[in-house]
């Protein structure tokens, strides 16, 4: 208990850091994921290819490697002077977007084709059909897998702590380095992660329940 109480400010700092990193990356991954899914089912071949390359590349790269690229390579070529926080968000958000996109695409596959035909018969354009009819239903189907992805994202965010971004993991390293009982520090840090992931899981369960639609 001592470790937590004596260093509460540090813990809080790390907790808020992780929370911020996770939520901004989650928002980015969801927005990009919708875009990726939309491109993958688009009638335009170029968009389909682009999305496929995006998914294949990001899904098959170790996330640590992505962080290395984001933090050390990207600023040199593209974004000099970008904060490590923004770079970490970029790496995490893009990485997770590939998985979100795939979950959504599987959701799209679960929507009966006839509904898209009905929407087109009413005179809806492709984007309207996607936005009003297909994606809302795909999203409901994909909620459970996306919930798991957000939990995974929370845990992956710990890698950012190794790259100079303030988060729980960074604080753990700092506390361990300053001679506190490593085991005790670990327990508190783990509990803090657990708290966040638990809230995310519950949130998605609630959403699933709310949005369930009989087929």
């Amino acid at each position, binding site marked *: 208990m001592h470790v937590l109480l004596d260093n509460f400010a540090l813990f809080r700092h790390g907790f808020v850091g992780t929370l911020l990193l996770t939520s901004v990356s989650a928002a980015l991954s969801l927005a990009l994921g919708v875009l990726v899914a939309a491109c993958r089912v688009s*009638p335009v071949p170029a968009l389909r290819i682009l999305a496929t390359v995006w998914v294949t590349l990001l899904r098959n790269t170790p996330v640590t490697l992505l962080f290395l690229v984001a933090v050390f390579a990207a600023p040199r070529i593209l974004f000099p002077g970008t904060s490590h926080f923004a770079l970490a968000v970029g790496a995490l958000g893009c990485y997770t977007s590939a998985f979100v996109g795939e979950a959504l695409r599987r959701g799209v596959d679960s929507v*009966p084709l*006839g*509904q898209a*035909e*009905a*929407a*087109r*018969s*009413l*005179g*809806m*354009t492709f984007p*309207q059909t996607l936005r*009003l*009819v297909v994606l*809302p*239903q795909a999203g*409901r189907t994909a909620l459970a897998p996306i919930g798991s992805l957000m939990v995974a994202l929370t845990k992956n965010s710990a890698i950012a702590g190794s790259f100079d971004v303030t988060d729980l993991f960074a604080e753990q390293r700092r506390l361990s380095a300053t001679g506190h009982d490593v085991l005790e520090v670990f327990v508190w840090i783990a509990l803090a992660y657990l708290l966040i992931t638990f809230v995310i899981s519950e949130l998605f369960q609630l959403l699933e329940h709310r949005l369930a*639609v*009989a*087929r």
Partner: protein
Amino acid sequence: MSDSPVSPASPRSERAVPPSGEPLVVLDGVNKHFGALHVLRDIDLTVARGEVVVVIGPSGSGKSTLCRTINRLETIDSGAISIDGRPLPQEGRELARLRADVGMVFQSFNLFTHKTVLENVTLGQIKVRKSPRETAERTARSLLDRVGVSGQADKYPAQLSGGQQQRVAIARALAMEPKVMLFDEPTSALDPEMINEVLEVMRQLARDGMTMVVVTHEMGFARSAAHRVVFMADGRIVEQAPPDRFFSSPRSERAKDFLSKILHH
């Protein structure tokens, strides 16, 4: 179905006024292949404004495909299709605009499962026709009343019977104020006791002068509501005639064979 093909035609009191003769849907030399399969062969068909055309034929004869080419849910390989004097455009906004004028009713209803019945009927009006929500809802409620499901407006499609769902689907298509309505086997997925409630809505629509192309196996409907029966086999239009003449004295062997199979049992 006890009538034999040679029995005298029944009186057709329900028949709408004869069509004006002004062409609304024109198919000219339409061909389509699914891979090696030639599903539509040199189809020429003109549907006049106000006319009710019922397309019948054995399964695999291409009648559903024919119906789906009219609003370009199926593309064609050669030939031309025009609606109200305008050729079907390529995929895109133009085509979307034209589709809004062509109502379509599917075998499997295809209602939007995540929307209520009322929302199903207002969605196209609001998003495609850009009608204000209140106007759209008023139109929707009067249409739901017309097809006899006004009590179900706030339910979701899955809570309705098949017959009710199909009537909602008809209301959804009518909400766009289409120039022509396409029915692709609208009663084939229904339990027998629900077929009539859907056919009755369609008969009423025919009496009101709606231009209709109906692909169906319901010979009773063809007899009582059609101005013209189009008989298809192997991707061709083999024979077309007013229903009394077609059912009492079909000329082609294919039609005689088909009718003897479906009318004797």
